[in-house]
């Protein structure tokens, strides 16, 4: 039952990532702008295609011996490309002028690349056939560390901006719908951060059956939380009222 719930959470996560990713990529096809291209691709690749490939072996009955190995390798590579695209989005959108952000972005991306390559070279087909995809290797921890730092950064920027826009709303200098988009995106990123922590705990205590069940349950809840918050963040709803005034109108113009 818990396994089914865990799977349901992951499927909701994958489906929402694909839907939101495609929607933003359609926008990017019209605007040809960098931010929507990177965040759209990130959602489509990391949350959608990559994660779908990683959970695909669970749906295969009696697969070819090499199939789980190749699905894992392709899925991991695609997910890492998606994570990297999220990091470049955060850097370029929130902190493009700041040197520390460039250093942080470069460090996270380097960690992702090194970790992904190391994990790919390390995984043996025999281990994959037995369902042992991740090992307690330095490559795994480098990759997970880079993901953790990058997603913490992204969620911190999102919550910070939500706080700023909430203050601006009092003066009619922000759009309530845009402010809540930052909040929901921050919630979805924070849920992913907890998924990374959950992954680390699961890896450190891999022998415990209780930890395995708890981890599955947490994955189910977090997968659903990411799906719901992503949906609220990026599927437009009727905007709430914005305070009137000439400058408010100008600010609303920015937001449209």
């Amino acid at each position: 039952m818990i396994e089914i719930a865990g799977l349901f959470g992951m499927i909701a996560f994958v489906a929402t990532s694909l839907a939101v990713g495609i929607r933003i990529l359609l926008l990017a096809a019209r605007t040809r702008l960098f931010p929507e291209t990177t965040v759209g691709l990130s959602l489509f690749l990391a949350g959608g295609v990559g994660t779908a490939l990683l959970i695909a072996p669970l749906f295969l009955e009696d697969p070819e011996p090499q199939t789980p190995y190749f699905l894992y390798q392709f899925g991991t590579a695609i997910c890492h490309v998606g994570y990297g695209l999220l990091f470049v989005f955060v850097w370029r959108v929130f902190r493009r002028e700041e040197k520390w952000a460039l250093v942080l972005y470069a460090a996270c991306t380097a960690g992702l690349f090194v970790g992904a390559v190391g994990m790919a070279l390390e995984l043996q087909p025999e281990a994959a056939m037995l369902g042992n995809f991740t090992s307690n290797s330095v490559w795994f921890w480098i990759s997970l560390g880079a993901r953790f730092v990058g997603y913490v950064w992204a969620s911190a920027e999102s919550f910070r901006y939500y706080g700023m826009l909430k203050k601006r709303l009092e003066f009619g200098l922000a759009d309530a719908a845009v402010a809540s988009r930052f909040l929901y995106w921050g919630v979805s990123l924070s849920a992913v951060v907890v998924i990374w922590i959950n992954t680390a705990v699961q890896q450190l205590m891999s022998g415990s059956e209780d930890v395995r069940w708890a981890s599955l349950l947490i994955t189910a809840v977090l997968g659903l939380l990411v799906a719901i918050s992503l949906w609220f963040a990026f599927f437009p709803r009727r905007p709430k009222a914005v305070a009137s005034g000439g400058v408010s109108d100008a600010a609303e113009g920015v937001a449209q």
Partner: protein
Amino acid sequence: MSPAVETSNFDLAAEQLEAFSSLNRLEARGTLRIALKDSGFSARSVAPDQLRVVIERLLPEHLRDRGVSEPEEICQRLVDFLPNESSSANAETPEAIFARLGSH
């Protein structure tokens, strides 16, 4: 809008605040910076029309708290000094990008 231009909006307003009031340079910049922060803006990225609203609605109270006389008149003079640019002509701010991401 380039960062240099964005910075000069704040700098321009702070310089004028120093000139129009009894505040010294550090006090003028600090007071304006706190007013911006209280309204969710940073000195680096605030646009002229946003700065105008902060000066009109929030700065008089901050000036009064610091014992500056005739704060409303000073703020009106500051507003008159600011360039008539609109933030809608702004470059890619995070809020503009996120607004677009939810657009139809």
